[in-house]
C-alpha cells in the first residue's frame, strides 16, 4: 500500500449548515463548477472552520444540490457544509456573504435539524420565471395554452451522448404567462427528474407546438426549489430545519 498521511486524522464534522444562496446579474453566466470554486475559496477567506475528508488530498465537506444551468440566474441554490467547530449560522452567513462577489448573495443559513433527514429529499421541483424581451405576452399566453393542452411535446435535447429526443410535457406541473416591462414573462413549476427539463427545453417545446420564437435571448431565474405537494405548492426545503431547532448547544465559536 501507499503512504498514509502522518499524524492524526482530521477533526470530525460537528455541525452541518444548510445554505440558500442566489446568483444574479453577470454571475448568472457562472457554471456550477465556477460557483463551487468561488464558494470554496470564499469559505477559506472567511475562515469558516470547515471539516475535511481524510487522506492525502483532503477536501472540505461540501455537498452541492442540483445547480441552475449556466446562463440562468437563481434565488434558490442550496448547499450543505460540514464544520469542525460549532458556529453561529447567522455569523457564517454574514462572513461568507462578505467574502463572495456581490452577485452571489448568501440568503439563509440554518443548522441541519436533528432527525429531519436529508436536504436532497426535500427538493424535487423548481419554480421558474423566464423573461422574454420583445415578445408579445398574448402570443406567449396562446403558446402556453397549446403546450398545456398537448399530451406529448417532443424536443431534441443536447446531452453528453449527443442529441436526444425527450418529452418536455410531463415535467411541467403548471405554466402561465404574464406581462413585464418590455417583455413577456413565462412562469412555470417544473419537476426535477431524468432527463432534466430546463427552461430552454420548455421554450423549444413552445416553438414546437405554437411556432413561438422570441426575438431576443431569454433571461431565466429560478425563484424557488422544494417539494411539490398535492395542491401545486412548493414547500420551503429549510422549513423542517427551522422548526426542529438546533440540537444541544455549546458555545458557538465566532467566525
Amino acid at each position, binding site marked *: 500500500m*501507499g*503512504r498514509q*498521511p*502522518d499524524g492524526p486524522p482530521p477533526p470530525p464534522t460537528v455541525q452541518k449548515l444548510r445554505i440558500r444562496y442566489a446568483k444574479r446579474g*453577470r*454571475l448568472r*453566466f*457562472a*457554471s456550477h*463548477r*465556477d*460557483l463551487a*470554486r*468561488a464558494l*470554496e*475559496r*470564499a*469559505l*477559506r*477567506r472567511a*475562515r469558516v472552520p470547515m471539516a*475535511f475528508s481524510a*487522506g*492525502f*488530498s*483532503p477536501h472540505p465537506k461540501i455537498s452541492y444540490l442540483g445547480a441552475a444551468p*449556466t*446562463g440562468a440566474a437563481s434565488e434558490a441554490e442550496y448547499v450543505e457544509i460540514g464544520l469542525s467547530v460549532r458556529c453561529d449560522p447567522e455569523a457564517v452567513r454574514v462572513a461568507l456573504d462578505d*467574502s463572495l*462577489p*456581490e*452577485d452571489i448573495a448568501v440568503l439563509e443559513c440554518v443548522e441541519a435539524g436533528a432527525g429531519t433527514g436529508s436536504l436532497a429529499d426535500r427538493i424535487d421541483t423548481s419554480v421558474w420565471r423566464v423573461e422574454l424581451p420583445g415578445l408579445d405576452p398574448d402570443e406567449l399566453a396562446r403558446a402556453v395554452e397549446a403546450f398545456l393542452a398537448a399530451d406529448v411535446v417532443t424536443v431534441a435535447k443536447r446531452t453528453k451522448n449527443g442529441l436526444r429526443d425527450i418529452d418536455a410535457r410531463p415535467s411541467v406541473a403548471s405554466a402561465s404567462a404574464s406581462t413585464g416591462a418590455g417583455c413577456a414573462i413565462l412562469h412555470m413549476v417544473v419537476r426535477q427528474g431524468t432527463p432534466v427539463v430546463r427552461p430552454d427545453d420548455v421554450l423549444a417545446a413552445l416553438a414546437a407546438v405554437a411556432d413561438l420564437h422570441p426575438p*431576443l*435571448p*431569454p433571461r431565466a431565474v429560478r425563484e424557488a426549489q422544494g417539494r411539490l405537494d398535492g395542491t401545486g405548492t412548493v414547500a420551503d426545503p429549510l422549513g423542517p430545519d427551522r422548526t426542529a431547532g438546533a440540537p444541544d448547544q455549546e458555545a458557538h465559536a465566532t467566525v
Partner: protein
Amino acid sequence: MTAELRTTAGESLYPRLEPLLAQIQKPIQYVGGELNAQVKHWDAASVHWALMYPDAYEVGLPNQGLMILYEVLNERADALAERTYAVWPDLAALMREHGVPQFTVDGHRAVADFDVLGVSFATELGYTNLLEALDLAGVPLHAVDRDESHPVVVAGGHAAFNPEPVADFVDCAVLGDGEQVVGDITDVVKAWKAEDRPGGREELLARLARVDGVYVPRFYAMSYGDDGAIAAVTPTRDDVPEKVGKRTVMDLDEWPYPKQPLVPLAESVHERMSVEIFRGCTRGCRFCQAGMITRPVRERTITGIGSMVDAGLKATGYEEVGLLSLSSADHSEIGQLAKELADRYEGTNTGLSLPSTRVDAFNVTLANELSRNGRRSGLTFAPEGGSERIRRVINKTVSKEDLVRTVTTAYANGWTQVKLYFMCGLPTETDEDVLEIADLAVEVIRAGREASGRKDIRCTVSIGGFVPKPHTPFQWASQASPETIDSRLRLLRAKINEDRKIGRSIGLRYHDGKPGAIEGLLSRGDRRVGRVIERVWREGGRFDGWSEHFSYDRWVAAATEELAPFGVDLDWYTTRERTEHEILPWDHLDSGLDKEWLWEDWQAAISEDEVADCRWTPCYDCGVCPTNGTEIQIGPTGRSLLPLTVV
C-alpha cells in the same frame, strides 16, 4: 459601426454584450467581476490603459506580468488600467454581427477608448490574436494609419525583444521589466494630453522613443542586401537612440506585486497563487531566452517572500502557492524558506510547490519538505537533452548516473510519477542523442521499481521541438525541420515500446514539429514577416497556440507568397544557419548581452564546452551588468520568517 451604436468614451458596453453571452461557450470568461478586480471612474484618470494578454482568458488571467502592471497602474490616482483577452471565434462572429467592439472585462469599455493598449507577448504565437483584437476594436491594423484618437499600441513581454515581425502593427515595444516603465509612459502620455496633444501622434511617439527601454519601430528604417539579410538599421530621427536598452528592476522587495492577486470564477490554467521568488537566471542554458534576457539574478528576500505568501493567501483563498522563478531551487535561502513555510502552514491544507526544477537530489529534499503535509504524486525534472553530449552543448550538464540516482531517490521517497522534460532538434543533435532518452527512461523505471519496491511507478517523457530564440547563443543556429523532429520522435517511440514490460510504465507526450517551425519564423523574423502574419490573420488564423486552431498549411502558403517578392522564404528564416557578422533583426535592441560573448558561447556549444554560473564562480563577461549598471542581488540575508500571529 453605425452612428447610433457609438458610445461616449468609457461607457459600458455590457448591455449590448449580454444578449450575445447567452449564445456562446463559457460566457463567464467575458463578464469580469473577479475577486480583487477594479473598475475605476473613467473621468478621474488622465491616462487609460487597456492591458491585453493575447490568448484565451483561461491562459491570460493567471499571467503574473499583466497582474503586476494592472495593480501598479491602478495604484496611481491619475491612471486607470483594465484587462482584455483574446475573444474566441464564436463570440467574435456575434460581436461583428452586432457591432460590439473589443472590450475590457473590468468595465466592459471599448478598447478604442483607451490611451494605451499594452499587449504582453509571452509567445510569438499570439501575434494573429493581436490583429484580431485590433480589428475588433476598430483600431487600424497598421500603426501608420492611426491618428491621435487611437490608442498607442505597446508590446511587452519576452517576445518584445524581437518585435520586428509585428513592427507594422505596434507603435512601441518595451524591453525588460515593466514595473517602472509603465509609470514613465503614463507620465509622457499625461503631459502630452495636458498640453493638448502638440505635434499629434508623431510627437507623442517621439517623446516615448526617448523613454529608456521604449523602442518605436517607425523611427528605424530597414534596408536589405542582395543575400536577403539586413544591410542596415538606420534611425530616421536624430533624437532617438541607436540602440534601445532594457529596463531592470533592481530591488524586488520594493515591488511586492501582485499584492491582491486576481481570482477568477472561471477555471484557469493555474489554479494557485504565485509568488516570484527571484528574477533572472545565470545558469547559462544556451537554449533559454528567458535566462539570457532577464539577467542579472535578483532575489526577493526570505522575509519579502514570506509576507507576500501571507498577504496573497488572505486576499485570495487559494489553497496552493507556487514559488516561481526560472530555477527556484537556486534561491540562496530556499532550504530555510521551504522549511519555514511548511512549518507555518502545517495543518492548514495549504499546498506549496516549486514549479521549475533542475535535476538535482537537493530538489527531491525540497519537494519532500514542501509536501510533507500532503500528497506525493508527481515530480518534474527538466534534463532537456537526452545524452550527456547534448547536455554539454546546451550547457545543462548532468551525468546520466546523477539523473538516474535523483529520479530513483524521488521514487524511493514515495513519489509515484516523475515527469521528465526534453527538447528535440537541438543544435548538433543526432538520432542517437534523442534515442538515449529511451535508455534513460528505461533505466529510471528499472532502478525506481527496485528502490521503491513498487510496480506502479510511472515516468512521463514530455518533449518539445527546440526553437532558436533571439538574444541567445543559439540565435545563429539552424532550426531542425519538422520532418527531422517528427522522424526522431517516431524512432524514440518505437524504442520505448521495444520492451513492453518497462515501456508500459513510460508515457510519451509530444507535439509534431510543425508549430515549432512557425514559432521559429516569428521568433527570428524581421519586418518582412509582418506581411505573412497579416495574410494568415486575413485568412482566418487565430489562436495559433491551440492545435485545433493552428493551420500549418495556411502559414506555409502565406509565407511562400508573401516572402517571395523579397527573395526569402520560410527555410531562410528557420533552417538556415546565420554567419557571425550577419545583422540580426534584433541587434539594435540591447538585452545587455555582448554579441561577441554570445558568439563565443555559440562556438563553445559546438565544441561541447561548459560555462559555470556566475553566482558562484567568477564573471565570464556576458556584458549585462556593465552595460546596464546592474549587479547580482542574492542572499542569504540571515533573516528568518517570523511566526504569524494566530487569529
